[in-house]
């Protein structure tokens, strides 16, 4: 039998992990632990995991409340305890599902919380045995007070980790800690005006965020510029393409040199045009240049690649927020999976110009669709077409060969000013949501479609389907499974 590792006492030096709670689970937990009786209550949370160079995040997937007096009973060595049967049932469930077992109880007070000595002694007595049952998955405990959460996570490798930060994915993203957060540093002079909106804490938070932008074209590039000027500390920008001359009117700060226009102009020898195409600036490099001009110390990962490739999509799994600014159904599908599998909130943004068969311009619209784990997903709202996923998965030559009806290959019309509204709405939504400034939920829903020509704003409440394989809460959904499920990408 493999010897048990020797566990060190929990210490401040251990690498802190992050916990992410979707809104509905957090609300249900809050209602169970704090019904107003000032007593202690218990529960178990199962959680997926994601490990990256940025650290470890636990992604809360299921809540199992312990009934008072049945599953959560008076203890001899502690005030209350979960019964062995309740623990046994749920540690085995977590083992079978490859999820992290987290025993939960509450203390009283506001803004700070920690485990008591009896709590820690019970971990030391019980968790080595639970790790044996969990067969390779970590186990741990969470303790909550009003507005505070602390954790003690034990790993099969013999390490113990506190929960340093808990992120609650409400409409306004909340962050709670074991102790009140230290006062943020004074804002830099450059941020004086904007930090007067969201405070030094908001500015400091923006600097610590990692935000992904899928697409660096006419929508994605201005988003990158806005995020950098807001002071977002780390940007991941993904796009496979290079700048072309027809992009220039919609790409701020791009130049003819980026498009190598003197080589690619029609009429030049084809070999020169192809050379120009190969020498043109990748859009992600332009995005990095734009971001660095805005904020020279920002970290920008310029990923020239296709989001459908596993090594590209993986760059987004530890982001704090995602912008989808690419309008393929494949990109929508992967974005939607990232939101639900890794609990990364995001927003889809874009603009659309309808063109009739006779070339007449129809409706012009900009769309904004915030997507959160509990908010209704792109699949549930029929915004991802399975037939388009099939088309987009085929090599171009096969796709061409399979066409037997005339298809429209003309590029879609696009104007920078039409993109601007969606860009501003999306970055506003992000900035207000992460700094806690959004007002209470729109009664008509957060999906927005602004029809520019008619000057009409239409909002809708996203639908949710309980059997959805991405946002559903059933056993086979990918929700909050983190590294325990596969993304719908090539080569995964």
């Amino acid at each position, binding site marked *: 039998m493999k010897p048990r590792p020797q566990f060190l006492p929990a210490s401040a030096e251990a690498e802190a992990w992050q916990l992410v709670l979707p809104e509905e689970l957090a609300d249900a937990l809050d209602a169970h632990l704090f019904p107003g009786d000032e007593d202690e209550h218990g529960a178990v949370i199962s959680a997926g995991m994601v490990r990256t160079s940025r650290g470890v995040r636990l992604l809360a997937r299921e809540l199992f409340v312990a009934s008072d007096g049945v599953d959560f009973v008076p203890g001899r060595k502690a005030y209350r305890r979960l019964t062995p049967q309740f623990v046994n049932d749920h540690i085995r469930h977590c083992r079978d599902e490859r999820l992290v077992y987290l025993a939960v109880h509450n203390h009283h007070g506001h803004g700070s919380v920690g485990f008591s000595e009896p709590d820690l002694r019970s971990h030391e007595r019980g968790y080595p045995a639970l790790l044996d049952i969990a067969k390779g998955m970590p186990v741990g405990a969470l303790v909550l007070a009003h507005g505070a959460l602390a954790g003690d996570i034990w790993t099969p490798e013999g390490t113990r980790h506190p929960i340093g930060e808990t992120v609650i994915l409400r409409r306004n993203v909340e962050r709670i800690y074991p102790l009140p957060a230290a006062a943020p540093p004074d804002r830099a002079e450059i941020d004086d005006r904007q930090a007067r909106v969201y405070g030094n804490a908001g500015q400091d938070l923006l600097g610590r965020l990692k935000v992904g932008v899928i697409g660096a074209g006419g929508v994605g590039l201005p988003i990158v510029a806005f995020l950098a000027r807001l002071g977002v500390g780390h940007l991941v920008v993904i796009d496979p393409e290079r700048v072309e001359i027809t992009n220039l009117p919609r790409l701020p700060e791009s130049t003819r040199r980026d498009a190598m226009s003197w080589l690619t102009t029609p009429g030049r020898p084809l070999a020169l045009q192809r050379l120009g195409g190969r020498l043109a600036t990748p859009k992600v490099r332009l995005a990095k240049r734009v971001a660095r001009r805005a904020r020279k110390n920002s970290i920008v990962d310029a990923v020239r690649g296709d989001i459908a490739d596993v090594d590209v999509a993986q760059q987004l799994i530890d982001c704090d927020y995602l912008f989808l600014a690419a309008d393929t159904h494949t990109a929508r599908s992967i974005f939607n999976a990232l939101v639900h599998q890794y609990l990364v909130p995001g927003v889809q943004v874009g603009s659309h110009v309808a063109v009739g068969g006779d070339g007449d311009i129809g409706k012009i619209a900009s769309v904004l669709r915030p997507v959160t784990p509990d908010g209704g997903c792109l699949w549930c709202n029929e915004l991802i077409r399975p*037939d388009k996923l099939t088309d987009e*998965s085929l090599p171009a030559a096969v796709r061409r060969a399979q066409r037997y009806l005339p298809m429209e290959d003309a590029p879609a019309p696009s104007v920078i000013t039409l993109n601007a509204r969606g860009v501003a709405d999306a970055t506003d939504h992000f900035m207000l949501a992460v700094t806690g400034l959004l007002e209470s939920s729109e009664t008509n829903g957060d999906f927005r479609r602004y029809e520019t020509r008619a000057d009409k704003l239409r909002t809708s409440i996203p639908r949710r389907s309980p059997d959805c394989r991405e946002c559903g809460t059933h056993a086979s959904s990918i929700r909050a499974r983190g590294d325990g499920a596969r993304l719908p990408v090539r080569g995964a």
Partner: protein
Amino acid sequence: MTPDVEKGIAEIQHAFAGHGVETVETGDGGAYVIVADLDLGPAFVPRSSWIGFTLPYNYPLADVYPHFACPDLATADGTPLPTPPLNSGQSMPGFNRPATMVSRRSPRWNPAHDTAALKLMRIIGWFAEQAAQTRAAA
């Protein structure tokens, strides 16, 4: 192949037991699949054909279409093939076989319930329905 693609193929082998099932990997997680000796019903000659299709890397999120059948497929009554969905002069990807394409999208494809095996049954059902429609028209 991804686990979902492997599962899709296993379901096809189970649902079409007794028919030969050939597969070729697409190289990105998907598979090209051919199921042999399927009865297309009396409206077509030859009445029996192989049917092929691709399970893309993102199956079952992605619809399974188009399908492909033998290249010499014709109607039993000599009328032209209904185009669409049938289109001759095509090639079955992955196997480089001349083929007749059967393009039947599923606008209501639901990844939670739909599978490649069910879709293949629907395609075979469509061929059978053509005989019923021919009889009704006569």
